[in-house]
Structure formats: C-alpha cells, structure tokens
C-alpha cells in the first residue's frame, strides 16, 4: 500500500510537469490548429534561463525560497518573450499558407533551437543549482513526499487555476475563446487576432518555462536535448486529454505520468521491462488515435465545408 501511494505521488509529480507543457500545446492548437513542435524546446530554454539566472543573480550559492521565486518568474517572462518571438518570426509570416507549411516550420524551429544550444553550450548535461532546501515528509507508512514534489504540485495547481481564470474571467480570455471558435469572425468583430495569438504563445511558453525550472529542482540534470522526449510525451498528453481542451491537457498529463511510473514500478511483475517507460506514452497515443481520436474530454467538431 505504501509503495502504491508512493508510486502514485511519483507519477503525479512528473504528470504535473507534462500537464504544464501540454497546456501550451493545447492552447496553441485550439487557436491556430497548429501543433507547435518547438514547444518542448521552450521548456528546455526555460530550464537553461533559470540555470543562468541563478548564477548571475547569485542564488546558486545556497537554497532560498526568494531566489527560487525570482528565478522561476524571470524565466517565465523570458520564455514568454521567446514564445512570442517564435510566433512572430516563424509562424505569422506563413500563417496564410497551407497548415502543413506551418507544421514543418515548427519542426524546423525545434531543430534550430536545439542545435543552437548544442553549438553554443555543448551537449554535456549541466547541474542545475539547488534552489530549494530539500527535505522529505512521511505521509503515512513509508510513503514520502519531498519539498520539491510539493513545490511542483503547488505551483502547477496555482498556474492552472490562474490560466483557468484568465481564459474564463478576463477580456483577453474571452477574446482567446472567440479566436479559437473562429479566427475570421473574431477578426470581423474587431478583435486584434494577431495580438491574441501572440498572447497565447506567451502564456503557453511561460507555463513550459515554469515546468523547466520546476523539473530542474526535482532532477537537476539539464541538457539542450531534454525537451525532445518530454515535449513529445506532453504532446501525447494533450492528445489523450483531447487536443484543444484545457482541462483535458491537465488530465492527460497526469495520466501519462502515472502510467509511466506504474510501468516502471509494476511492469516487471507482468513481464514488461522498465525500459519500456517511454514506449508506453506512444502506445497510449496510438490507442487514443484508434479508438477515441477526440481524446478523453474532447468533443467532435464537425468540419465546416
């Protein structure tokens, strides 16, 4: 029982990170019908910005909650700008062409970011400084939860609530929903669609950056290619939850995280090697696409003719 609860906590922690990243995929898809494959790399950029900020601001010397908050927020701001820049320079100029062109561009941007980082910083993993005094608390029996896990849960939930509030309670959120409903009609209603799209990228990228900094507290090893597999899994999470659906992305992220951890924790009993953990996400993707292409919470949208 202890072990089960522990595995659940482990799974929810990585699931929360996937959820944060999946939100960015799902929002951009909801608005532009574009899968932004560079999103996983924004998560990596977030971790690296956090890494350099902690050193340049002097917070790398010792753990401090203030340092962590400042690094987290600054990294989110920087990545919001990065996300806006990607949209402005890579996607906006070709938005009027076929959707496939934008998709291929997204893959190109992803490769560009990864290889720029490898070229400038090298592929060697770096050790993210510890900004949080690590401590574990025993829940019941043997199940332990560490400070970094509590932080990941806390910040993720907070950010998701904030996002929900922005989307449903603010003017800009209403505009986002309008744009996702129909871009051209929204434009006719006087909504500055370019600005709204830009804002959506900023929002998604900031969440990914938060994921990057938080995950680095949990696993301090960061490298320029860390966004590839995590980004893909978050994408699967978005599809699982129903791409374009915000609560679906959160649900999908958590489910993927738990599934992965359970494969590692219990797979051996039924003869599934632990090294299959990455395969699970993609097996889920195939099953979802086969049996419920709209995802768990997605609804069927009739294509307009």
């Amino acid at each position, binding site marked *: 029982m202890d072990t089960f609860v*522990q595995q659940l906590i482990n799974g929810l922690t990585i699931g929360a990170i996937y959820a944060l990243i999946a939100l960015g995929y799902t929002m951009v898809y909801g608005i532009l019908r574009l899968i932004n494959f560079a999103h996983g790399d924004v998560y990596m950029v977030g971790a690296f910005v956090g890494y350099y900020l902690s050193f340049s601001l002097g917070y790398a010397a010792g753990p401090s909650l203030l340092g962590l908050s400042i690094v987290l927020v600054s990294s989110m701001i920087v990545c919001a700008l990065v996300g806006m820049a990607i949209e402005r320079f890579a996607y906006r100029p070709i938005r009027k062409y076929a959707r496939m062109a934008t998709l291929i561009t997204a893959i190109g941007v992803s490769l560009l970011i990864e290889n720029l980082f490898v070229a400038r910083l090298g*592929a060697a993993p770096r050790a993210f400084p*510890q900004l949080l005094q690590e401590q*574990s608390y025993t829940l019941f029996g043997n199940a*332990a939860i560490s400070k970094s896990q509590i932080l990941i849960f806390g910040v993720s939930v907070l950010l998701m609530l904030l996002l929900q509030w922005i989307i449903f309670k603010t003017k800009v959120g209403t505009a986002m929903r309008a744009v996702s409903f129909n871009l051209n009609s929204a434009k006719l209603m006087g909504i500055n669609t370019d600005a709204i799209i830009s804002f959506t990228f900023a929002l998604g990228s900031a969440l990914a950056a938060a994921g990057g900094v938080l995950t680095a507290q949990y696993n301090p090893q960061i490298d320029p290619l860390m966004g590839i597999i995590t980004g893909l899994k978050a994408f699967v999470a978005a599809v699982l939850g129903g791409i374009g659906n915000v609560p679906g992305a959160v649900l999908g992220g958590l489910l993927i995280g738990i599934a992965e*951890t359970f494969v590692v*924790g219990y797979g051996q009993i039924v003869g599934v090697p632990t*090294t299959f953990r990455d395969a699970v996400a993609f097996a889920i993707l195939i099953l979802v696409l086969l049996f419920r292409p709209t995802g768990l919470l997605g609804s069927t949208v009739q294509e307009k003719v």
Partner: protein
Amino acid sequence: MKRTLLWLLFVGGACFVFACERRGGPGAGGSSGEIVVGYYGDLTGRTSNFGQSTKKGVEMAADELNKAGGINGRQIRILSEDDEGRPEKAATVVTKLIDQDRVIALLGEVASGNSLAAAPKAQAAHVPMISPSSTNPAVTQVGDYIFRVCFIDPFQGEVMAKFAANTLKAKKAAIMLDFNSPYSRGLTEFFEASFTRLGGQIVNKQSYTQGDRDYKGQLTAIRSTSPDVIYVPGYYGEVGVIAKQAQQLDIRVPLLGGDGWDATQLWDLGGNALNGDFISNHYSVDDPSPAIQKFVVDYRARYGTVPDALAALGYDAMRVLADSINRAGTTEGPKLRDAIAQTKNFVGVTGTINIDSQRNAVKPAVVLKLMDRKYVYQETIYPEGMGPTTSASPASTSGSPTMAADGTANSADNTNKSANP
C-alpha cells in the same frame, strides 16, 4: 544551376586540398620527427567529465616526457578528437585519427561502449590502442592490438561484493543498472555472482537508460524490498540524480558504485545525498605514496583541481605507451604491440602495471567513501594471488593476501547511512 555547380566544385576542391595537406602532415610515421599519438574521448557529451579528465592526464604526461627530452629525442604530440560520448562517433573519429592523421597509437576511451565501437578500427589498421579506463572484459577481447591499464569488471564487481558482504555485513542487496551500457551490465553480472557466492541475496533488480529524467519508480520498487545496500553501477550523470531522488524518497541505506561515479559533476547533481555512499576506484588521492602525492601536487599546480582516477589512468596510459615505444625502439605497429604486451612491473600512479596475456592490467582496487565532496579511503582489495607486498600502494598497512582492510580508517560509523539500520 551553373552557379551551384561552380560552388560545388569550389567546395569539393577546397576539401580535397585540405585533405591532402593533412595527409602529408606530421604523423607520417618513420623513426624520426614527432611521435603523433591519437587521443579520443567524450569532450562535450553526457560523460564529458571523463573525457576531459583523461585528456588532462594524457597531456600532462606527454608534456613531462617532452620536457625530459622526449622519447629517444623525439617529441610527443597528442591529437585529440571529441566523440561526444557516442559509440558511432567514436568509431568515426578513430578512423580519422588512423587514416588521416596517421597516429602511431591510440589512447581512449573511458566508457566501455565507446571503446568497443572504436577498437575494431584500431585492430584492423594494426594501430595499438590503450584504453586508460574501460573496464568491460570484452574491450581487449577485440584483438591483440587492444590493451588497457586498468582492472576489469569481474574484479571490480567482486571488490564491491566483498566490501558489501564482509565489511558492511550486508545480507540483501538491490541493483539499479544502466540498461544500455556494457559497463553497467558487466558490473551487475559480476557483483551479483560474487555477492550471492558470499552468502548474500539480490532482492531486486531495476534498470534505467541514460537520459531518463525520473528514477523514483524504480527506487520506490527497490525500497519496498528493504535492501541493506543498493548497487548502482552507472555513470555519474545519472547516478547523481539517482542519489538525490533516493534521498527524497527517504532511502537511507548506502548506495554502492564503481569508477563510473568519479567526476566532479557527480557532486553538483547529487550534493549531500551522496554522503555515506561507497565506490570502488583505481586509486586514492589520500594515498601517501610519494609517486601519487607528486602526481597530485603537479596536477593541482597545472589544472587547479584534484586529479580523479580517470586523470591518473590517462597519465599512466600515456606513460606506459612512452615506455613501450622506448623499449621497442620504433613506432611500427607490430613491434610496438609486442612491447606493450611485455610491460611488467611498470610503476604507475594507479599502482604497479603488469599486462597479462589477455592484455589487461592486473591491479588492486580501492574502496572509497563519499563524504562532503571528498573520497575517503576505506580499504584496498587485491586480486587473487596478489598481496600488498607486490603492490606499490603503501596505503594499506596490513591484511590478508586477498583482502587488506584498513581497520583504523574511517569506518561506516560516522554517517547518516548504515548498512544495517
């Protein structure tokens, strides 16, 4: 179209000229002029601490030899190539060093998987290769041109099994291995065999792959079987994170590892979570032997850091090579190979090096305890049939022929981790 063709011609021509220039270059061989030695290692990849340290050791040895007049009056030049820690890249850069730079011998790699990928190239070209620190037995089995100056995994696995069973009195061990690494799989196999033979029990075995970001699933499964020790024969990048996540899960038993842990980045990743863990290694910087202390002081003066075992092995590999060239009187492949194979009682920093018929070095291993970014010497464990008397390592003062325990040294008491909680 015409312009593209012109460009292609230009680029192609430039490459050709460049290639020719390199081909006729310094490494042309013979018995006069510079001796060009190829070094390849991971300088920028996931295990770059290894490659960088080894390179420093190799270069320091070469510089010292050159200052002392070189080998028979010929200066040594080291050509380094970066394989980014990838086996396929290791094979490519070694081919380049052999075909283009015409090196007379190769030094490298650290990771056994990369050495295994490069060794067939050296063997086919009849260029002797000395691996400073690849411990998987298969490396030198590639062919008679492949050597190493370190011990091999059957011994290293046994050392940790003996230490766990005899010194830590562990009864139950769990293993967490790097699934895709020949190094890790080899050590797992030999640790398991020795530990079971010594009366212990392997209660759980979990695996991960390099680049994984989360190890808590495996560690939780291991925790539920409550082992006395956890053997993690991996490389520092993953091990540092594993130690940290084990601490987060409140796992208090010591983690045991091998020479793959020895890197400064291990501490950046794992921090104080590593305190109280143990590793087997090639040498100890605390060893009072004058040869080791001189090396440590010189290295620190040159690079500003304490040399890890990989730097020491790189240093020894270069010096064994120089000694062999000296004895062979030539740099021709077959003669040089024979000279390396005949290396006997070479006093290196990492112990006395005797190359056996399998082209492996037979040497003792030390067990070190990790404490606050330092490695504290625990004991020296000798291979069968080799006692402290035949070794150059004076750190151990007493003990049986096969196992010399330093009873006075820092025992496992002053730690937050203990084998029998």
